[in-house]
């Protein structure tokens, strides 16, 4: 029997110790914060989950009937916004990274970053003051000539404050962050792959299609998720622009629009009392879960074709 030699211990230096402890502390803070928020939401929500209209005046039947249209509105508005923002941001990013002359590209880059710094309340004001009146004739036209498409049916809104307008405002808001990420990713495309495409006789667009976009795909998805996250949680712009009802409707142009969870909380909270407060917090919990699910799905999509991602 031989005794194992004593493990060699690295000398503990004060600087290392201080730094490793403070890094550990910083890292654990993120978990603590997340846990604190989750616990608050769950504890406050429990009474609301089983409440009926007898307990809380804000409900018409029960909690789930109340939150359903809100979840729909949240996802619907965010999806519409993303549908508009993704192609545009990819286009801007490609222009900046691969088409524009260098000087113009850096100026454009600054402008995009500046746009990201505009507070959402300003976008809300712009939406209500400029965009909504401006789109009224467009909506009327769409409604008249394309009204046979269910999305454009119903009676066109006279104020322009519809879910589509809100989605446009959301799209403008998420555009800068998505563009910035896409641009960074496109700039990272290995020159090797771009040259491989060009040497095969690819035009610039073909080079982008076979070298840049496939390489940037995970980045585009990450950008979309970030944009979606912001669109899902955006409060002021939607609350200001949208003339909201409590419905599930796919019609884009009418004055009867579903609202989003965040906007609904902002608008209803000042007058809420007693169990109504818990109901609103419970809708917040649902938003938390939806955002979480969206992130998980995006991560799964990115991981699915890892082999072909160019990371190996």
């Amino acid at each position, binding site marked *: 029997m031989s005794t194992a030699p004593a493990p060699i211990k690295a000398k503990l230096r004060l600087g290392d110790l201080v730094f490793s402890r403070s890094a550990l502390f910083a890292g654990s803070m993120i978990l603590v914060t997340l846990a604190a928020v989750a616990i608050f939401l769950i504890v406050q929500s429990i009474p609301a989950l089983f409440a009926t209209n007898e307990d809380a005046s804000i409900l018409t039947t029960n909690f789930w009937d109340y939150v359903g249209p809100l979840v729909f509105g949240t996802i619907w508005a965010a999806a519409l916004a993303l549908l508009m923002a993704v192609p545009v941001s990819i286009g801007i990013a490609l222009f900046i990274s691969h088409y524009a002359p260098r000087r113009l590209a850096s100026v454009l880059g600054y402008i995009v970053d500046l746009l990201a710094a505009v507070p959402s309340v300003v976008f809300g004001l712009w939406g209500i003051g400029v965009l909504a009146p401006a789109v009224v004739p467009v909506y009327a036209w769409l409604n008249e000539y394309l009204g046979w498409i269910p999305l454009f049916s119903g009676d066109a809104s006279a104020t322009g404050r519809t879910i589509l307008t809100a989605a446009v405002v959301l799209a403008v808001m998420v555009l800068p962050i998505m563009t910035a990420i896409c641009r960074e990713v496109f700039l990272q495309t290995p020159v090797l792959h*771009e040259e491989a495409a060009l*040497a*095969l006789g690819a035009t610039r667009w073909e080079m982008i299609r*076979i070298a840049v976009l496939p390489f940037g795909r995970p980045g585009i998805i990450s950008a979309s998720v970030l944009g979606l996250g912001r669109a899902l949680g955006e409060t002021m712009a939607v609350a200001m622009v949208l003339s909201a009802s409590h419905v599930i409707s796919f019609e884009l142009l009418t004055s009867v629009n579903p609202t989003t969870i965040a906007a609904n909380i902002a608008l209803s909270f000042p007058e809420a009392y007693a169990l109504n407060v818990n109901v609103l917090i419970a809708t917040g919990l649902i938003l938390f879960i939806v955002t979480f699910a969206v992130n998980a799905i995006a991560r799964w999509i990115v991981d699915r074709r890892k082999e072909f991602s160019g990371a190996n």
Partner: protein
Amino acid sequence: MSKRIEVRDLNVYYSKFLAVEGVTLEIEPRSVTAFIGPSGCGKSTFLRTLNRMHEVIPGARVEGEVLIDGNNLYDPDVDPVLVRRQVGMVFQRPNPFPTMSIRENVIAGVKLNNSKISKSDADDLVERSLRGANLWNEVKDRLDRPGSGLSGGQQQRLCIARAIAVSPEVILMDEPCSALDPISTLAIEDLIEELKQQYTIVIVTHNMQQASRVSDKTAFFNIAGTGKPGKLIEYDETTTIFSNPSVQATEDYVSGRFG
């Protein structure tokens, strides 16, 4: 299939910097020509002017003429995209498209030129190109796996298959073996010997044994000092360059006295 290349008084610039000066040479069809010389002498830069890949770098430009079977590549109405479809290129580091399978990599160039290709034609082409690159037996059972999963030497042969799939007339190779081990290098050298039956091949190499093994003619480039332009010093039969060069600098370089 293969064509003669004539270069007349070619000056190559990066913005204002003259990188290569006054190159004049002729390359015979169905031959292997090696460019040798110390680092930074402009041999890779010069190679890239032969399929207009040089101008991909911002600010890069060329003066002079490159004629392929009498047609000037730098004529104002020549489309560089079409030039690159005739003059294929293999790079220093293997660069298969990482998001594509082996099969997709081989037909990537053909898909660009002619987006409608029937499945059976594509299958034939994939097999023919991979056989042409001596890679078929190694990958025939995994054509749908990513190209980036192959070894370095296999990736480089995949890149050669991709280049020959578009049936170019000339193949340019920019130090194709410098990132490979000796066995893979040998495989590529054997392949060059076979490809020479059909294609005009121009290869840049740092390895003088390689130049003497694979090439028919050799061009020696040199540079007088940093910041000075690279020049073509001597261009002759490979045996002459390595045994009895007419310029002292060439003899010093090939015998290992400098560089």
